[in-house]
Every structure is written in structure tokens, then in C-alpha cells.
């Protein structure tokens, strides 16, 4: 007959709220244990500025540029694939060029003179990371970036985007070790033809791509002509043909 009683199920529902109330406090949990009521293990509030939530390793926020060793030795070759693929178009890249307008090469690789990401537009989708053939751009998990000015503080330039590979290994150990393995395998592949022609010194080599190739042509060296649509497959640092 309890079913007919008006308000009985309201009271039962209140029992649920009372139980949840008890679960919120240590003494309440003790009471529940004594009464042998199974606890459903609610979530504990994280007192944010003092305590920070543990993020999972894959947590992504904004992208950053990875460098090995010194900040001059960044992996990015200014191929502009990420700029092209970025859905909200928040990346802006300018390739480093000399007075004649030819791309400057360091260790056989071109460099970005300018690499800006407008973080107020970025939607953290990770597509730039997926498309980068050089593993030069990765997702950061630093999130406390609020600023009072959009253009001054949220437009990240190259200096602000650069972060070391050690930092990457620290925030995302699994992904970073995978990337390192992949890069080492690529290096091994490209080292073999380079050893066959040890005379070709990397720094003084002229640009392999003809002037008409445009900035999108990656420094592959193996591709004879300009290939604006095809993405480069491997970062072969010293062009063997040169």
C-alpha cells in the first residue's frame, strides 16, 4: 500500500539526497559504513587554484614548436602544410630567405623566419600535429593562458612557441618516445645515402629546389621538380644530390 501513499516516493528520493550528502563528508562515510550502505563514490571537488587536476597524457590545448638541443635547431622547415590545413587558419609562416630571395638552409633544412599562431582563433583540434611530416609541432597542455589583450598576448610568435624536446618528453612521455623512435628510424634511412657521398657538406650547399618551386616545396632533394601538392615523406637533412 506504500505505493499509493502520496509523497512516499518523494521521501525515498530524499533518502538518496541524504545519502549523497553523507558521502560528501568523512563522518558521513563512516556512518554509511556502519549502516552497511554501499557508497557510490562521488567525485571530490578539486580546489582549483591551490590544487590542480591531473590531466591525462593526451590532454591537448594549444600547439607548440619542438626543437632538439638548442632553440636554433628546430624541426620545423617552414613547409607550410600546417598553415594550409589549419581549419580556422590561425597559423602564419614566413620562410627564412636571403637577399636574393632564396631559402636559407641550416644543416640542409629551411627555416621559418616567422611562425605565428593566433591562439584566440586556434580551436585545439590537433590537425596541425597530424599533418606535420617532420613532427615539428605538438600539442601543449599548459592552459593558464588568460590575458587581458587579445593581440598582444594571444598572438604567439616563434620565440614563445619554441619548446624543447625534453619538455615534450616530460608532458607526454608515451607520444614523445614514439615520435623520437620514428625520427631515429628516418635518420637511419637518410644517413645511408649521405654516407655514400661524404663530400657534400650540408651548410654550404646551394638550395636544391629551383627558384620557381615556391616555399611549399620541401627540401627533399630526391624530388626533381616542384611538387606543390604532395607532402614530403621524410626529412632528409643533407640533400644527397647536391
Amino acid at each position: 500500500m506504500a505505493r499509493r501513499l502520496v509523497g512516499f516516493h518523494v521521501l525515498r528520493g530524499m533518502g538518496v539526497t541524504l545519502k549523497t550528502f553523507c558521502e560528501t563528508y568523512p563522518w558521513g562515510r563512516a556512518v554509511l559504513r556502519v549502516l552497511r550502505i554501499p557508497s557510490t563514490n562521488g567525485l571530490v571537488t578539486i580546489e582549483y587554484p591551490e590544487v590542480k587536476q591531473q590531466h591525462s597524457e593526451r590532454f591537448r590545448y594549444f600547439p607548440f614548436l619542438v626543437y632538439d638541443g638548442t632553440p636554433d635547431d628546430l624541426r620545423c622547415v617552414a613547409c607550410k602544410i600546417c598553415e594550409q590545413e589549419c581549419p580556422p587558419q590561425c597559423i602564419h609562416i614566413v620562410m627564412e630567405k636571403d637577399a636574393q630571395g632564396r631559402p636559407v638552409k641550416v644543416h640542409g633544412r629551411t627555416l621559418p623566419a616567422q611562425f605565428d599562431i593566433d591562439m584566440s582563433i586556434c580551436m585545439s583540434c590537433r590537425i596541425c600535429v597530424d599533418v606535420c611530416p617532420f613532427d615539428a609541432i605538438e600539442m601543449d597542455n599548459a592552459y593558464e593562458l588568460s590575458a587581458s589583450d587579445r593581440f598582444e598576448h594571444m598572438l604567439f610568435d616563434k620565440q614563445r612557441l619554441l619548446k624543447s624536446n625534453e619538455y615534450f618528453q616530460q608532458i607526454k612521455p608515451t607520444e614523445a618516445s614514439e615520435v623520437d623512435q620514428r625520427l631515429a628510424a628516418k635518420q637511419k634511412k637518410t644517413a645511408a645515402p649521405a654516407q655514400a657521398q661524404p663530400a657534400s657538406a650540408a651548410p654550404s650547399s646551394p638550395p636544391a629546389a629551383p627558384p620557381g618551386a615556391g616555399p611549399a616545396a620541401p627540401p627533399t632533394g630526391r624530388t626533381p621538380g616542384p611538387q606543390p601538392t604532395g607532402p614530403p615523406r621524410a626529412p632528409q637533412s643533407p640533400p644527397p644530390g647536391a
Partner: protein
Amino acid sequence: MSPEIDTRPQVETQTLEVNLGPQHPSTHGVFRMVATLDGETVIRLKPVMGYMHRNHEKIAEGLTYIGCFPYTDRLDYFCAMTNNLALAVAIERLAGIQVSERGEYIRVIMAELTRLVNHTAVTGFLLNDMGAFGTPLLYAFREREKILDLFEAASGSRMMCNYVRPGGVREDLPAGWVERAWEIVRAYPKFLDEFETLLTKNDIILQRTQQVGKLPQPLAVSAGITGPMLRASGVNYDIRKVDGYSVYPRVQFKVPLGTVGDVYDRYLIRILEMRESLKILEQALQALPTTSPSISPKGAAMGKAPRTFRPPKGHAYGRIEAPKGELGFFLVSDGSPQPYRYRIRPPSFINLTVLEDMCLGQKVADVIVILGSIDIVLCEVDR
């Protein structure tokens, strides 16, 4: 004075036009209802939408197919995974991409977890609309939080997942993910029992929801209503069963159906669907293959170089049973890397069309409850 003239005192009544929204917490976003009231009874209701229009369909025509995925996350922000899945299904139909076995299972697991997230949250919001401020909603959000943590572990983001790709999923599941998913699947029925103790037979809820906002079966069918709303009216139509896409034909589950089609039925259908989702999850987690890759080679190549992906000329419509109803993407390809036409069939928008029919003759306080029971997300309505 002639005897024909009625001399009894007359009360002159007027109808009152009330604007509910656009900045109103009960409208679940920026949505306006212009209700014409006679006393407290609604005699006319005009929905006004478009405040959240973001031009997604036109923007997508300038993007690569992969580039559209992050925008689909922002359609129905509760169900990013199923939005991704619907677009992936449409692209697979367009280009004939095979999905890897493991990818299919991961997708189904993610889709059903999304259904849990959506139905839990919408039930909490429905109660919020009835005046139970906070309590049921926060219980719902507590459980949602646990699933969002799972999404973050797999995809890197809690809500804007951008995880499903044509051919499978973007990354494989991280180590220990399946165990964490099992924990949630095992603990969820207890939460549902507790939630139902709190709500299902509660006298106040019965009073507020039963026989309110009835949607007759013929109207539901002719208006193109889909999802839990249609099934609450007693129509057995679930695209997981009808189309049998992905691995749904291989798992056992039932389609709960309502009888009356009122707000209470819509609430109850969602609770029952969550229980069925848990059954699907159990079977999918059990059968998750470990050997095959999470994405097929063609899909992986497409993800690495989106601009090289040029589907053949033609068109395709891919649809799935999203938590809110039938979510479909219609794509027209002209052979270029960008879609020529990109059209979304949003369940929220089409389910919203019967709002006036359900509200006529009801009290103004019920309008809020009826709107809550439709389960709309304005970002999806306006796109």
C-alpha cells in the same frame, strides 16, 4: 432599453504575448519562444531561432574533409563523438573507405558512452526545468564527468574530441583505457538505480510530466521526428536497427518504446536507453579485437595528408542514430579535396518543429518542461 441587450457585467479579456528567451536559462541556449497566452494557456507559440548561426555548412565547403571534423564537435557539444562518427560514415560512403575492425568497436563504444553522457545530462536538465534546481542535474553531471575523463584519455579533449576519422579512429586507445571503461560500465547501473529512485516514481514529477506535451504518433511520423522522442510516441524506429551500421547487428539490445508520448515517456525512454547502451557497451568491450589496427590504411593516409584525399564525383548521405535522433551528413563531391556541398540533418532542429503542436493548450509553465523534453542543443539547431 430593449430586452435583447445583455446587461450582465462583461469581463474583457485579452491575450498576452510573452517572450521567453533568447537569454533565458530554460531555453538551453539562445532560443526565443514567442508565446501567446490566454490566461495561463498557450494558444500560439512561435519559435525564433538563428541566434547561434555559425555558418558551418558554408565554411565546410572551403575546408578539406578532415578539416570539417573539428567543426562537427561544435554542433552538439554534448555528443562530439557521435557527430564525428556521422561525418565519418558519410565520407566512407562517399569514397568507399573500409573501416578497421577495431576502429568499428571503438566507435561503437564511444557512441554509446556519448549516449550515456547525453541522456544523463538531458534528464538532469529536464528536472532543472521543472524546478529541481541543482540536485538531479549535479548528480547527472557527476557521472558525466567520469565519462568525459575517459574521452580525454582517449582523444585529448573532454568535449571537443575530434576523434573519429574515416576508416576508424585517430589514435588507438591508451593503455589501461578499457579497464577504466569497464569500471564505469559496471558502476553505472547503480547510479541509474539511484537516479530512478530519486525521480521515476516521484509524485511531483508524475504530476508535472504525465499527460503533458503529448505527441501523437501520426504527427511524430509525418513531422520527421527521430530519436527518443519518436520512440516515446511508440514508433519502433532506431537507425542502429534499421540501417545496422557498424557493429550494431552483432550486439544484442532492445529498443525501448513508449505508449503515451508525453514528457514522462520521453524521460523514461532515455533511462531505458541508457540501460540498453550499457548492454551494448558490455558486449563491445568484451569483443574489442586487440590485433587489428584502430584505423584502416586508407583512412590513416587521409589523416596524414588531407589535401590528397579527393573522393570521386558523386554524393552520399551518411546517417547514424545520434543520442538526439537521426544525425545525417549529405555530401556532394566534385572531385576536389573540398566538399562541393555539405549539408547536415540535425536531429535537434527537426525535433523542434513540433514544439508548437505539443504546447498548444498547455500551461505556460509546461512549455519549459516540453522544450526540455525535446532535448535540443542550439548550436546544432542553428549550425
